[in-house]
């Protein structure tokens, strides 16, 4: 009954071109036990990926590695990381018996929904990426976010993969039940000085926690240069060298997390060359450093949603400055409080200035840039009008847009129409 109703809602919402969560909402209301029933037959288990930054990219990488190893993997489409988004994604793949046919599920869940999910279905594995200030209007406090991840680890039945270098996450090892395997991903000690590019230091206090010494089961990121890197498991075993389609140290650490988790899941079935082949083919998820061909010039769409993420994005793209637009909305999914923009330094944009600010909070963004002495050429709150002007005025040069979540969705939809790109939600099955 719930499956049929959900499928109908799914068809209806696709015809309207509407949101991806609506059909899931219908099912959630009709059958609260839907999830545990649907996921009951997965022999390979249920893997939950969560943390503040990098969930979508890491999930996509992990799924790619597992599929390259021949597994059938169910996953939720990018960014629909609430439980009802997971349910919506399932509806197209279910038989009317309501059971999912796959080897395993890899689900990206937001920190609060990961725990809601675990109350219905205990994950066999969880990958906990990092904790940073994000949308404090929803999570209230970073300490609270860290506690949510700890509770998820305590609910996990088989294996937990933790960030070695984020003390909020590596400390969770103490909360993992006996008999559940803990492995880590992190950076090689030779690049420890680059950690500030990946995490915020200012909300972390000196404490007496010392991270454990990595073992041969733990994957460590060792970059060779700005593009090429390997993931090392002990002295003798390296995955790579490889080059991703997505730029920057953050993408490399996401690949390290995905590789470490795949290795923990697959055990002796894990093949280094297979993992490399998969990772080198993965395209950046929509809006996460995705490069769109706009009238023959590259247009980069970069999602930013919290101080750590925006800081990482600015440093990743800082060495190739191009004409820039910044679009800030303040809907629920963006974070309604825009205070966080003042915890990001925009001085790296001083040289070229910013061509346009847009979104509901376009003037707040322009004001923020003014206080960092970054020139703003134009302010246009309307996203469509801003995009139109940005593309027309700077037609013959490379461009970049930093945008919050709902601004990214709106811009992406518009760009998909203009340049014939696949639509949001079609990507999970590509």
């Amino acid at each position: 009954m719930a499956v049929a109703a959900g499928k109908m809602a799914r068809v209806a919402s696709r015809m309207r071109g509407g949101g991806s969560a609506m059909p899931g909402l219908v099912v959630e209301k009709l059958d609260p036990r839907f999830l545990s029933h649907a996921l009951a037959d997965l022999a390979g288990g249920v893997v939950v990926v969560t943390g503040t930054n990098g969930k979508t990219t890491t999930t996509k990488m992990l799924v790619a590695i597992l599929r390259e190893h021949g597994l059938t993997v169910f996953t939720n489409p990018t960014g629909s990381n609430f439980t009802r988004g997971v349910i919506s994604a399932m509806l197209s793949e279910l038989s009317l018996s309501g059971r999912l046919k796959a080897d395993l599920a890899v689900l990206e869940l937001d920190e609060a929904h990961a725990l809601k999910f675990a109350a219905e279905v205990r994950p066999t594995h969880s990958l906990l990426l990092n904790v940073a200030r994000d949308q404090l209007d929803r999570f209230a406090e970073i300490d609270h976010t860290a506690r949510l991840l700890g509770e998820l680890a305590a609910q996990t039945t088989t294996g937990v993969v933790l960030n070695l270098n984020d003390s909020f996450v590596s400390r969770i090892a103490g909360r993992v039940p006996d008999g559940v395997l803990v492995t880590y991903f992190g950076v090689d000690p030779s690049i420890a000085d680059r950690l500030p590019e990946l995490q915020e230091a200012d909300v972390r206090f000196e404490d007496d926690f010392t991270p454990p010494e990595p073992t041969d089961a733990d994957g460590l990121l060792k970059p060779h240069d700005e593009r090429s890197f390997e993931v090392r498991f002990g002295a003798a075993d390296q995955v790579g060298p490889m080059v991703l389609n997505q730029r920057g140290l953050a993408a490399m650490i996401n690949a390290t997390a995905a590789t470490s988790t795949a290795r923990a899941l697959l055990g002796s079935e894990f093949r280094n060359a297979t993992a490399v082949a998969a990772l080198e083919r993965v395209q950046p998820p929509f809006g996460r450093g995705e490069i769109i061909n706009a009238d023959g010039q590259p247009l980069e769409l970069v999602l930013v949603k919290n101080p750590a993420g925006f800081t990482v994005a600015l440093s990743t793209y800082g060495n190739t400055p191009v004409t820039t637009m910044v679009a800030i909305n303040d809907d629920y999914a963006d974070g309604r409080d825009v205070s966080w923009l003042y915890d990001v330094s925009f001085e790296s944009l001083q040289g070229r200035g910013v061509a346009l600010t847009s979104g509901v909070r376009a003037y707040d963004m322009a004001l923020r840039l003014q206080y960092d002495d970054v020139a703003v050429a134009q302010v246009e709150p309307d996203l469509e009008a801003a995009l139109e002007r940005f593309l027309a005025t700077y037609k013959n040069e490379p461009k970049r847009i930093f945008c919050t979540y709902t601004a990214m969705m709106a811009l992406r939809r518009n760009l998909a129409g203009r340049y014939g790109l696949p639509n949001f939600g079609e990507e999970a099955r590509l």
Partner: protein
Amino acid sequence: MSNHQSVSHQSVSHQTGGPLVSKGQIKVVHIYPREMSIYGDLGNTRALASRLRWHGYEPLVHQHHPGNDFPADAHLVLGGGGQDSGQARVENDLARNSEVLRVLAADGAPMLMICGMYQLFGNAFITIEGERLPGIGILDVTTQGNARRMIGPVVLETVYGDVVGYENHSGSTELGAGQRPFGRVRSGMGNNGTDRTEGAVTGNVFGSYLHGPVLPANPAFADALIKLAVERALGEPFVPGQIDDVFANQARTRQVRRLAG
């Protein structure tokens, strides 16, 4: 000279070093920037430092960390919001330096305390469990811990005109008899969600729940603090410079229109 960027210009002349001849030095102290600045309240310090420069003064920004003596020569003191763990980390230092702060406050030094520091500048914070954590009592307010958080955008009516910001607090604050609020709530919850007051003002000490951060988009309030600090520091009237506040005024009035009609 201290002119800033307007909407239509393509380039900006940077004001990195300030004007050639400073009208005077103003010492701005940010109290507990590590422990008590999780919601962008650092932006208040950035905004004041920039505006002082644009007005032709030279800001000296000092960060006060726990364990150090609080600078008794501060001209302006700023504090922000933190997490419970951040508050626990500053309690002892605040108690140790409370006398210096009380003397400064009584002497007319302007101070702006946001959220967690606003609560700590009050008489006490009473936890949900009923435990009474004493504040330093500069503002006659008492805060009761609450299971419900008050979260959302805010518009206030104040003597500086409409003030916009964002609140995110679980404490419910009551003003003592005769304690003046900072503003009247036009949209949002304010001190407690019931009496439509927001914040508290005693002398030149301002307490408020408004993040945003509050000063960048509300330049009339920022300049009022600057005026007090300048007069205190230099013993002469504040001589404002020309600042282009188009972005700030647009950002504020758009929020007012969205929220308070």
